[in-house]
């Protein structure tokens, strides 16, 4: 299949910066501009600027917008205040995860659902189907927004210098409309790096101007453009799941150790929501007899585990790596893996990863690998 890749509004800019581009979910995206390790470290210690315009925005509006979202998603969206955001998931009837999402409440009856690029169409289709019977409209706004992220400890200062918005009053997982570099933006204090930071939803025609303004504002404090490669190692260190790796339709949120996102105590729709029955069983199974658990693995050696590699102990396969990379912060390879519950306790002896036929020793640790000092 040779479909032309989709380009973000910043495509020409990325190329002028010498980015190495990669196909991601049908989009041509920056993988890295220079060294991905330098980009990673910039976000941990200073600031990094990302183009995330491949993410899929879906707007839900109308008198019953919140009832629809409570029905369609596993979270309790009724409890999300105006100007706040919530990490949640959308599941199948059988409890399998269709995608993980952030839902932003933009107004009294207006919400923006942000889906992964690879799942945006699936989420859109599911929301449209599940909207039947609700007085609410589901709108595909994927082309309406460019998305920039400025992440890292210097990001509040950088953004503050080019916006009139009250960033000090903007809490983690909150979002407010404001003006950035003279253009309207939805400013959200969210991210996928384990650092403080902001995501800016903009009109695509404004993306280049805001990118340049942020670059200029961050020049003196070490902000650099960052690609998806370091975004992956940043989220991995922070123990954040990635759809297609830690999350799939074969797993429920409880299997993924994220049962906390499922809210059985919802009051809308008499507490009914898509997947409820299956998820109740999954919750019980996770409590009483979990098959596998998501754990962290830290290498004792230097060879890097990759997704799909087998986790072994005493010659037996006890699990599978879902994500793995050299960790710039820890200075050694790390991985997330689903491991048989009997061997999932931190410190379990004798665990290894089969790396091309050799069993390399790995330490089982609790997630995350990295937590920022607040």
């Amino acid at each position: 299949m040779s479909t032309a890749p989709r380009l973000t509004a910043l495509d020409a800019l990325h190329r002028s910066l010498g980015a190495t581009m990669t196909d991601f979910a049908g989009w041509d995206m920056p993988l890295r501009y220079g060294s991905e390790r330098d980009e990673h470290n910039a976000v941990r210690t200073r600031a990094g600027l990302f183009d995330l315009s491949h993410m899929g925005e879906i707007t839900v509006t109308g008198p019953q917008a919140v009832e629809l979202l409570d029905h369609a998603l596993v979270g309790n969206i009724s409890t999300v205040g105006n100007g706040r955001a919530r990490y949640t998931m959308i599941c199948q009837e059988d409890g399998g995860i269709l995608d993980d999402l952030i839902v932003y409440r933009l107004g009294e009856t207006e919400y923006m659902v942000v889906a992964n690029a690879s799942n945006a169409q699936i989420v859109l289709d599911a929301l449209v189907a599940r909207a039947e019977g609700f007085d609410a409209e589901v709108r595909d706004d994927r082309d309406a927004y460019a998305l920039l992220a400025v992440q890292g400890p210097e990001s509040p200062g950088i953004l503050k210098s080019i916006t009139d918005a009250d960033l000090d009053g903007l809490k983690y997982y909150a979002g407010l409309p404001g003006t950035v570099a003279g253009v309207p933006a939805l400013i959200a204090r969210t991210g996928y790096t384990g650092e403080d930071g902001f995501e800016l939803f903009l009109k695509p025609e404004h993306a280049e101007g805001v990118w340049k303004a942020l670059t200029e504002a961050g020049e003196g404090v070490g902000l650099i453009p960052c690609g998806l490669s370091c975004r992956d190692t940043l989220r991995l260190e922070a123990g954040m799941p990635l759809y297609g790796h830690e999350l799939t339709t074969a797993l429920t949120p409880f299997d993924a150790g994220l049962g906390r996102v499922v809210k059985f105590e919802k009051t809308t729709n008499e507490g009914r929501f898509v997947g409820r029955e299956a998820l109740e069983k999954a919750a019980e199974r996770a409590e009483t007899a979990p098959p596998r658990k998501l754990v962290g693995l830290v290498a004792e050696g230097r060879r890097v585990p990759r997704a799909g590699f087998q986790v072994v102990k005493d010659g037996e396969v006890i699990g599978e790596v879902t994500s793995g990379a050299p960790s710039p912060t820890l200075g050694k390879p790390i991985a997330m893996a689903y491991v048989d519950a009997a061997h999932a306790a931190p410190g379990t002896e004798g665990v290894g990863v089969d790396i091309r036929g050799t069993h390399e020793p790995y330490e089982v640790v609790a997630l995350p690998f990295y937590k920022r000092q607040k």
Partner: protein
Amino acid sequence: MSNPQQLRYTKEHEWLSDAVDGVSTVGITEFAANALGDVVYAQLPAVGDTVTAGETCGELESTKSVSDLYSPVTGEVVAANEDVVNDPSLVNTAPFEGGWLFKVRVTGEPEELLTADEYTAFSAG
């Protein structure tokens, strides 16, 4: 980027220096280093190992992937670059110089090694 004229190249993106006293130096090209991204781990052949032209003799691991290292020639390994083992980023910063990988006493050489110009055209293609 420019590929030094005095080296010869393989389609697996290794370079080979002309032999001095029968010993040639092997590394990967700047093109390959850029394609890999930050190299974080280098497993090199050990001194005394016999390597065979076109066969794997080690691996280079980067953030995103692992790549086999192929020997451009047949012979006995007489040195492995410990600096690269200790600091694999040398492969990225100086692929044709300090980032060399191993030295080999050449006993056999394939005919299809490329000149710098041929390799430049190949890697651009």
